[in-house]
């Protein structure tokens, strides 16, 4: 079995969630590398695009921001923010978009906080804010969220709802007037999680080799169903080779 790092495992776990033909919205960092890996391994017909308006960027080098000149080179279209978000709100293209997100806090319905910890008006810790995250979470067919698996990040109640998940349950989005999409999976440094078809509550789908479901629960601020979980398949030699040689050879993101 090949040696791999935790970051590589997380990246490949996310890449496997991307389907061929998806339009992949990504941010900076690990989400971009996951999108590049999927395109090179299992989803050759996927299209990577950025909220800044760059569509199908070649990405010869890893960009360090979604406005990086590296996302502008060898694209099919260099548009603007208005175009990019319209493609997600669009009734034909929006449902085909998968958004890859990250956040400071998540709750059991996949709602995300990337704005502030503590009182919004007197925050203990202030973060960057929504950026395009709220727009993506509002509009697109499905989202994948990267999280660090910690009790303070998997919380009963968010300090601030920046991006809508399933809101307060199965009818939450419909009641609020949101489009039909929503969170599909969460990938952490310990596990993969999905959302139950009926209740829209988070449940464990996979645990990483060497991690027990109990350890996963011990690091969360709420209970989830672990009965359906299986061990996550480690990255194959081929997946690792593509990831290392084609996606981030300088290891700017993978470390």
């Amino acid at each position: 079995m090949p040696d791999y790092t935790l970051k590589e495992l997380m990246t490949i776990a996310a890449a496997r969630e991307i389907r061929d033909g998806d339009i992949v919205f990504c941010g900076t960092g690990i989400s971009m590398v996951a999108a590049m890996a999927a395109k090179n391994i299992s989803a050759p017909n996927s299209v990577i695009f950025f909220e800044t308006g760059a569509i199908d960027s070649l990405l010869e080098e890893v960009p360090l921001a979604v406005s990086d000149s590296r996302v502008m080179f060898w694209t099919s279209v260099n548009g603007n923010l208005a175009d990019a978000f319209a493609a997600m709100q669009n009734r034909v293209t929006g449902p085909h978009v998968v958004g890859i997100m990250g956040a400071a806090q998540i709750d059991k319905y996949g709602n995300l906080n990337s704005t502030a910890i503590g009182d919004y008006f007197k925050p203990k810790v202030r973060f960057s804010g929504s950026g395009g995250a709220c727009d993506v979470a509002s509009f697109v067919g499905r989202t994948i969220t990267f999280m660090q698996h910690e009790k303070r990040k998997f919380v009963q109640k968010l300090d601030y709802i920046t991006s809508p998940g399933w809101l307060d349950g199965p009818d939450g989005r419909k009641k609020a007037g949101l489009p039909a999409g929503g969170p599909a999976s969460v990938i952490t440094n310990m596990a993969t999680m999905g959302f139950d078809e009926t209740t829209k509550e988070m449940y464990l789908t996979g645990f990483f080799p060497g991690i027990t479901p109990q350890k996963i629960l011990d690091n969360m601020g709420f209970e989830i169903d672990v009965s359906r979980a299986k061990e996550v398949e480690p990255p194959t030699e081929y997946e690792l080779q593509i990831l290392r040689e084609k996606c981030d050879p300088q290891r700017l993101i993978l470390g």
Partner: protein
Amino acid sequence: MNISKDKSIRLKEAVGKYVADGCHMSIGGFTASRNPMAAVYEIIRQRIDNLHLYAHSNGQGVDELIGAGCVSRLEIAYAGTGRFAPTCVRFKKAVQKGEIAVEDYSNYQMTLRFLAGAMGVPFLPTRSSLGTDIIAKWGFSSEMRAADPRIPDQKLMVMDNPFGSWGDAPKLVLVPAINCDVTIIHAQKADREGTVRMEGLIFSDVEQAKSAKHVIVTCEELVEPDILKANPDQNQIPSFCVDAVVHVPHGAYPTACYRYYDYDPNYLNEYRRYAEDDRLYKTYLEDFIYGLKDHKALLDKVGRGRLEKIRADKRTGYAVGLDRR
């Protein structure tokens, strides 16, 4: 509106003329790209304060204006400079200490707000943010809104679709227009009449420019009008939207300008280290801004060697193989 055939002016004069204490201002660019940094530094040097600043995802420009104490109110979607500062450091400190009032929106909402201003309508609808705190929590109080006619009385409003089932969207979020006193953008090319050509991604710079009462454009190259007219499909902003054109090579430095230069990882990493320490930050302001006469002096201080390292490669538009750790 300035209909002069020659709007070229020096940066010091342009800022002095159009950027005043307490004015409502927006800056173009996105995180670590094409922020109008020369203008930002000039604003700081002129010690303009109490600005009401608008941006969608500005990193470096917003953070330096906040750090220097020029900003009292901010409407924004995202304050980060890519991997160099996932959350802008001086922004974070200022919000946590309650030194500035912030109101949060999403990127699409900010773009639509500028577009509404550019179109001359009071608001535009979207389906973004329904059910979230972006609607529920206002950064500015009702009293503050009532006291300033340049701030709408409501943050965002949710309404039932007035067309009923048409368009299959039962509820909509209305985002209020922005009409700033001044917008500043940095472009690759402009002519003295004010026609602007940006290259690569143009973000929301066009909407931002068209929504403002006055527009300052700084540019890498000030070219003859005929050069822009030869390929008019590549131009984005017509001359009548622009008040001042300023020729400032490396005017986006230390952020990137596609096809001209990359961001300077060295500067942005150093900046973060200064920004994290209040005492060190004072020396940064003194050594890199107040103590320098103009942007040229900053470039001289940084030195030709570093500018050479970030020079854009002709094929790709960025500095290939640049050490970005």
